C-alpha cells in the first residue's frame, strides 16, 4: 500500500513518519515513534487504554488513523513528566494506590489530565464522569478517584498545571 509522510509533534518533539493510510494512530505512537506507554486493550474505543491528547483533546488512538493526526500535536503518558518532575496525577496514582496491573493507567492518567485542565476542582461525580471512558479491571475505580482528588488538591496548593 502506498505510503505517505506525516508530521506530528509528540510530547514536544517534532517527528516525521512514512505510513500507510490505514495505519492506526496507536500503532504510529507505539511502533513508529516507540512510545509504548500507550496501550491497546479493546481495539474498539471501549476501554480507553489508548487514550492520548491530540491538539488538546483526549482521543482514543486505537480508532483513529495516523494520517488524521498529520500536523497535530500529541501528548501521551510519557509527556506528563516535566523537567524530571512527576505530574501531581502521577504522584496521586502512586500515593493512593490507583493501579494494580498498570495497563489502564496511561489512559486513566490522560483522561484525568484532560479533566483537571477543564475542571481543576472536580467533585467525585465529575471525576467518575471524567474517567467514564476508561475501564480498569483491577481496582474497582475507588482509588483512581482518590488519586485524582489527591492531584487536584496538590495542584490547587502548588499552582501546577
Amino acid at each position: 500500500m502506498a505510503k505517505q509522510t506525516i508530521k506530528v509533534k509528540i510530547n514536544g518533539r517534532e517527528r516525521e513518519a512514512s505510513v500507510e493510510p490505514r495505519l492506526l494512530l496507536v500503532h504510529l505512537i507505539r511502533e513508529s515513534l516507540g512510545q509504548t506507554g500507550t496501550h491497546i486493550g479493546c481495539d474498539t474505543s471501549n476501554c480507553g487504554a489508548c487514550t492520548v491528547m491530540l491538539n488538546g483533546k483526549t482521543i482514543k488512538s486505537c480508532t483513529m488513523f495516523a494520517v488524521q493526526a498529520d500536523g497535530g500535536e500529541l501528548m501521551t503518558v510519557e509527556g506528563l513528566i516535566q523537567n524530571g518532575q512527576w505530574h501531581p496525577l502521577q504522584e496521586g496514582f502512586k500515593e493512593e494506590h490507583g493501579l494494580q496491573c498498570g495497563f489502564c493507567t496511561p489512559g486513566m492518567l490522560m483522561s484525568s489530565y484532560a479533566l483537571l485542565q477543564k475542571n481543576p476542582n472536580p467533585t467525585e461525580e465529575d471525576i467518575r464522569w471524567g474517567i467514564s471512558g476508561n475501564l480498569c479491571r483491577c481496582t474497582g475505580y475507588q482509588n483512581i478517584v482518590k488519586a485524582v482528588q489527591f492531584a487536584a488538591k496538590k495542584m490547587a496548593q502548588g499552582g501546577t498545571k
Partner: protein
Amino acid sequence: MFKTTPEVGGMGHSVKRKEDSRFIQGRGNYVDDVNLPRMVFGHMVRSPYAHARLKKIDISKAMALPGVLAVITGEDLAKAGLAWMPTLSGDKQMVLATGKVLFQAQEVAFVVAEDRYVAADAAELVEVDYEELPVLVDPKKAMDKGAPLLREDREQKDNHIFHWEVGDKQGTEKAFAAAPVKVSLDAFFQRCHPAPLETCGCVADYNTATSKLTVYLTSQAPHAHRTLFSLVGNIPEQNIRIISPDIGGGFGNKVPIYPGYVCAVVASLTTGLPVKWIETRSENLMSTGFARDYHMTAEVAANKDGKMTALRVKTLADHGAFNAAAQPTKFPAGLFSICSGSYDLPTAFCEVDGVYTNKAPGGIAYRCSFRVTEAAYLIERVVDVLADELKMDAAEIREKNFIPANAFPYKSPLGWEYDSGNYQDNLKVALDKIGYKDLLKEQAEKRKGRVHGHWHLHVHGNRGRGPGAYLRHCRHQDV
C-alpha cells in the same frame, strides 16, 4: 492491633509498590512492548462455525501476498505430531484444527508475515471449506441420545467428561426421607469471561545457534507453560526460558495455554525468526478460557424450626469443547465441595458431571475462586429459599444453622476441616453495625408499593491463601 514502628515498617503501615513508578510514567514492559530485531508477526485464522468438518484449506492466495512468510495449518502440525496439546486438566486440545472445528473462533491456521497488517490481510485470504455439523450448545442436552458427538478423538463415544461425587449419598437420602421440610433450587451461574485489559499474546524467539527457546508470554503460570512447551515441542526444559514480563491483568485467563502461543513457537522454530502474536479483543473474548457455567440444583432437608438436616447438590458443568480447566486442585470440580458453606449440616452429598459443548474451553478459575464462588452462591440462595418457605428471617435462619463456635475444629460433611471460627458472633456484630432491625422496618415500609430487598452472603472461602470466612450484607434499594 500490633503495629511496628515507622522505621521498621511492615505490619500496620501502607507500603508503596515498587512497580508503580514505571507504570505511571509509561515505562511498563508488557508483552506487546517487546520488540526484537527481525521480529515477524503471527495472525490466527479462526472458524466462523461452532461445529463443522474441515473439508479443505487453500493457502495459495495468502502465501502469494508479498511479506507473507508462512501459513501453518493443522495438517502441517500433525506431520510433526504437534496438532494436539495436553491441557492442564488431563484432556487434550487442538492447537490448529484437524478433521473438524468444535467452537466458533477455534484456531484453524496461523499466518506469519513481516508486518502485523499484512499478517491480518493474509489471514483473510486463507480459504477454508467447511461442512456445517449440528451444534450442541445446551449442556443439558449433551448426554441425550442422538446428541451430536463432539469429540471423535476420544475412545469414549459420548460427550461426558467426568463424574465426581463426594459425601454420604445414602445417609443424605435417608435424611431427606425423614425430613418434614424440603426445598430445592435450580441455579445457573452463567459463563463469564475474565477479560483482562491486556489480551493474551507472546513473542517466541528460537535461537538457531544455541537451540534455546525464549518466550515472552502473558503467563500467570510460566513454570507450567515451560513444561508444556517442552512436552509439545520435544525441547528439554532447560533449553526453554519463559519470561512473564508485566502482565496487564490475568484473573485466571492467563493460566491456560493457548494455541496462539504454541503456533508462535512453531513459527519461530520454522522461520528462525522471533515471532510476535497478540490477540485482538474479539479473539480474546471468543476463544480464551471462560469461567463458571455451572447448572446447579441444591436441595435442603430441614426440621420445621429451620434447622437444616441435609444438603444434596447436583451440578452439570459446561466445559466447552476441550476440558482446559486451569486450577490447582486434584478435583475436577475444584473446591466446589465447600458448598455446605458455614452451616452445620449433619450430612450432605454433592455430585458434578462435566460435559462437552460447542463452546470455547471453560472452567478456568476466575479470580482464583476454584468454584468457591459458585458454591457460596448456591448455598446462600438455597438457605434464603428455605427461609422463605418457613417464613423465617434470613439472619435468624443463618444463626440457627451456623457451625457453633465450640464445634471447631469442625469436619464438614463434604470432607473439609474448618480450623476455627465464630460465625454467630460475626453475624451479630455485622447486623448491629448495619442496624439490621431498622433496615427490616424500612424494608417493610418501602414494600408498600415498591420492591426493596437485601441479601446475605456468608462466604466460606478456601482460596490460594487458605480457608476463611467473611460476611457481606448488601441492600438493594428502590428496585
